[in-house]
């Protein structure tokens, strides 16, 4: 659970770097080339399988643990949860649901179309690229897409702010010496990821 989580946490950083190319460079071909490279590189292809495996592992493990946890308290309290604990940790399975719903949209939107054609194409130096950059920019000119996208990343942020440091606790790494470091890193990481991903639609929409 925690290892798969940390793996996904690292992957998000890679994903963010590539996405940011869309707004960092005026030339859309930079992003298209990066996407092309990701889609046609054997190492990345293998990594892709590992990534989907990691995601599945994270989801399946979470479901098993959640069901066990529900069974562990067959009769609920009539008045519960008044302990002052970290807020988002109580809603991991709920934020996960929202993120998963977003992933389904995300996959059907970009991934499958990239794999099975249908995407607009552009030719540069004799190589055919999918023109994802234009597609992204077109999408984020529409307000509903911007709102859904930003909402999804806010939920991801809620998920990460607990998940990041929790993973280190589960792995037994967070002792008294490292605890403050990990807590700070957890906040910085979450802010960077959420701000980075949400900046893209905002910049495109308001440009």
């Amino acid at each position, binding site marked *: 659970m925690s290892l798969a989580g940390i793996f996904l946490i690292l992957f998000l950083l890679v994903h963010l770097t590539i996405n940011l190319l869309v707004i960092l460079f005026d030339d859309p071909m930079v992003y298209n080339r990066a996407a092309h490279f990701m889609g046609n590189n054997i190492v990345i292809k293998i990594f892709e399988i590992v990534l989907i495996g990691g995601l599945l592992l994270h989801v399946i493990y979470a479901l098993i643990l959640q069901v066990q*946890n529900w069974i562990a308290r067959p009769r609920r309290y009539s008045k519960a949860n008044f302990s002052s604990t970290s807020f988002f940790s109580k809603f991991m399975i709920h934020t996960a649901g929202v993120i998963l719903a977003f992933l389904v949209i995300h996959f059907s939107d970009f991934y499958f179309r990239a794999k099975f054609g249908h995407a607009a194409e552009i030719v540069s130096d004799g190589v055919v690229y999918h023109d994802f950059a234009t597609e992204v920019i077109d999408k984020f000119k529409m307000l509903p897409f911007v709102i859904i996208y930003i909402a999804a990343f806010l939920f991801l942020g809620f998920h990460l702010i607990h998940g990041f440091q929790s993973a280190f*606790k589960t792995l*037994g790494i967070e002792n008294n010496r490292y605890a403050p470091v990990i807590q700070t890193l957890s906040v910085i990481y979450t802010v960077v990821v959420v701000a980075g991903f949400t900046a893209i639609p905002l910049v495109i929409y308001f440009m």
Partner: protein
Amino acid sequence: MDLKLKIWRQKDSRSRGRFVNYFLREIDPDCSFLEMLDILNEQLISRNEEPVVFDHECREGICGSCSIYINGRPHGPDELTTVCQLHMRKFNHGDTIVIEPWRARSFPVIRDLMVDRSSFDTLIREGGYISVNTGTAPDANTIPVNRDDAVFAMDAAACIGCGACVAACKNASAMLFVGAKISHLASLPQGRVEARKRVQDMVAMMDALGFGNCTNTGACEVECPKGIKMANIVRLNREYLKSTL
């Protein structure tokens, strides 16, 4: 002060149980929560009704017997206190107080507010002790112990086994209880000898007994009357991983 009590009544582990409302008048704010329940029970007995059953023993906050879930929190609204050390001045005149037993599959209700916590004893039997022949008392300084380790072990040893951590946990997990025992013994040279087997056995038993899984929510740490820290859970995870690898 006048109070309305909403108390969980359940005849035995198999019956269904329900909330019953009681009204108490002119309760002294300086009496303890258990004394308040004593007053209620005296009134019930004089009316020929069944008194409310609840666990208690020392009434000094050291035995861990008292165990009541009050207004959504184990041991009630006060910090670092057991129910027997909770006083009515923490409540207001006219309050409605919801009083429930610990709720967890591994803590079945025996009657009313009393639950069976023998699953904790089962856990301790799996290795929550040191089984070396101590012989005669050794000289105090023959085994040197680092001061930080001694303090950490001593803090972990403060656990009174009341079960508030399980009661507070949204997953009814016993990780804080087991974590306290594991890190208490793992921090000291005498406990290291059996550390591997202890952590494997106790974790396996914890799962077998039907406790939930830890999601690092931290409700246990907030509600623990003895201030046992989540660092003990991290230590338990570390010991467990080390013993598995």
